[in-house]
């Protein structure tokens, strides 16, 4: 008797999973979103979600994909690596999404990618720049289901090291980095490699831990060594504080950063008069006169009543990017697993997709080949400095 009951229960359970998976593909195409919407780097996730929503709303208004609307299943990963993986599993198994968009940061994406790979769901990050996100460090093999629509840190570290050497004529660089962040460590490695190969010297390399607010002792130590530039591969929260505290200690050397600096909070925290002589690589500049960029800014302002930053732009591009792949994927809605494979093939074959942040082609490492811009802060205002191609 017990056996029969348990078999029936099992059948009911199995059927319920089955029906869920079919129900999702009948009326709408489910796409998961696994983003940092609260805690430490919430600003990135929130902006990206605004961008994704704007894009998906536009696509749905125009009729969606083959008559079906795209439905976003958004779950917050709380800026936490473990949580990012849980969210990815939940999206893959319980929500039966065709693809996962996000997370924003490298560490979270790497751990979410483990779950996505296991369940064979394509996962696309709009802004995880660490090289090891899409390529396994040990084997050098591309991770089959992991993609990104931004450039990677080798490119970004390269760009900044060359900028320091050639444009700023720097010989001695100091680095301050977050030892608990994959993003920070990845950039440090790439910057240092290129900078030292091309004749520069890294004279100080100082680590700090998660949540640090007081950098004055580290900066005092660096100041004593008289570097020509300070490279700080960190996120916006620390970036503002580092700039402010360095300037208050009388350090007026150029401060270099990467895309983590691209947020209004950096200037708010540093103070306008301190936010000078600061340079960073970014995904896009709102001063770009390109029609597509200006059109996006107008639409974003109309919907959210504020200026979009690079992360909003990356999110917007990701929305259209996935829609483009869905259109080309020739989805049959027979089984979620098969449709995921079709979608994955379509993403891999993306060539010359025109977005707001540049023209994207996915290469064999599942990275986006696209250009970067260098932005300078002058009295807290972003100035477009250079555009660099890969």
């Amino acid at each position, binding site marked *: 008797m017990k056996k029969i009951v348990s078999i029936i229960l099992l059948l009911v359970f199995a059927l319920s999973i089955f029906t869920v998976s079919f129900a999702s593909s009948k009326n709408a195409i489910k796409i998961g979103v696994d983003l940092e919407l*609260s*805690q430490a780097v*919430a*600003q990135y996730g*929130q902006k990206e979600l605004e961008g994704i929503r704007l894009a998906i709303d536009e696509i749905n208004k125009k009729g969606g994909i083959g008559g079906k609307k795209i439905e976003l299943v958004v779950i917050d990963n*709380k800026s936490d690596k473990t949580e990012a993986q849980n969210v990815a599993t939940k999206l893959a198994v319980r929500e039966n999404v065709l693809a996962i968009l996000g997370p924003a940061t490298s560490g979270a994406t790497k751990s979410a990618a483990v779950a996505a790979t296991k369940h064979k769901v394509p996962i696309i990050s709009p802004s995880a720049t660490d090289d090891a996100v899409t390529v396994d460090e040990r084997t050098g093999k591309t991770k089959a289901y992991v993609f990104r629509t931004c450039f990677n840190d080798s490119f970004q570290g390269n760009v900044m090291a060359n900028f320091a050497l050639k444009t700023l004529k720097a010989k001695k660089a100091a680095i301050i980095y977050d*030892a608990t962040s994959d993003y920070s460590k990845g950039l440090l490695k790439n910057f240092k490699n290129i900078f030292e190969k091309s004749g520069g010297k890294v004279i100080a390399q*100082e*680590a*700090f*831990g998660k*949540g*640090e*607010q*007081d950098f*004055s*002792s*580290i900066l*005092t*130590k660096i*100041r*004593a060594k008289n570097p020509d530039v300070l490279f700080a591969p960190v996120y916006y*929260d620390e970036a*503002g*504080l580092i700039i*402010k505290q360095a300037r*208050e*200690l*009388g350090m007026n050397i150029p401060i270099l950063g990467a895309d983590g600096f691209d947020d209004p*909070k950096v200037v*708010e*925290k540093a*103070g306008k008069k301190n936010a000078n002589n600061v340079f960073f690589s970014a995904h896009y500049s709102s001063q770009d006169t390109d029609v597509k960029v200006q059109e996006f800014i107008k639409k974003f302002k109309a919907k959210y009543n504020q200026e979009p930053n690079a992360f909003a732009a990356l999110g917007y591009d990701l929305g259209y990017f996935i829609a483009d792949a869905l259109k080309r994927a020739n989805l049959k809605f027979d089984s979620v697993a098969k449709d995921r494979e079709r979608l994955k093939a379509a993403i891999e074959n993306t060539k010359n997709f025109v977005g707001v942040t540049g023209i994207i082609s996915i290469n064999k490492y599942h990275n986006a080949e696209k250009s970067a811009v260098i932005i300078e802060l002058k009295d807290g205002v972003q100035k477009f400095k250079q555009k660099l191609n890969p």
Partner: protein
Amino acid sequence: MSTFMQQLINGITLGSIYALISLGYTMVYGIIKLINFAHGDIFMVGAYIAYLSVTYLKLGLIPSLIISMMFCSILGMLIEKFAYKPLRNSPRISALITAIGVSLLLENLMQIVMGADSRVFPRLVDEKNYHLFQSKIVINNKQIYLLIITIILMIILNFVVKRTKVGKAMRAVSQDMDAARLMGINVDTTISYTFAIGSALAAAAGVLVGLYYNTINPLMGVLPGLKAFIAAVFGGIGIIPGAMLGGFSLGIIETLVSGYGSSMYKDAVAFALLILILIIKPSGLLGKNIKEKV
């Protein structure tokens, strides 16, 4: 040498923050032998109240500081009344667990109300840097404010405890709660006052930290709260000058560790210090060894 002097200044600044928070810690412990783990979160609430009064009521530094201190002293009294008082006769561990509960409650409540993201604290004072010795040493006017306000608050606190009636009652309650009650002291009121004063000090520290780093977030109280606890134990928990001494020592030691070693070790050193002091002199630097009477 100039680098060392600069590090010392950095350390004193950090130390005054720890000292201010640990004053409240030490008072509460001294009187009811409760480690108030929610203290660091009251510090955080203090920073947010000042933030709100500056942004929405457009008040200056001193009025917002006073509003924040008043709000937090009421908050402290309420926490005492609802969370700790019902457990006053329970085992010490129950009170400790409640304290942790209150701490988590405040953190998460603030994340719901104000959002989890960090906020920029408005610039309330004109920033000025003073350069000494061919500009090798830089002192910021906010660092001076921080130090002066800390010292003033400590002097006021010392005066309250040593010279006023409330202070006398506090000292009596800390010696023997039952005997004090027999002598006609209202123990509940006295404990309420202690929480009010302790929380007001935490609030002041929160506002000053917001001003100094110009950034606040709902979890900003966690680590400083723990550090202030270490500072209080280091100087001798329950002793007001001890909290001050412990705070400054911890700030300077941490700064020197990250200035001459690595910033990654400074938290480890702080906690190692706590363990060491507990082994060598459990009553703290200024504590006296009191023999238990049998």
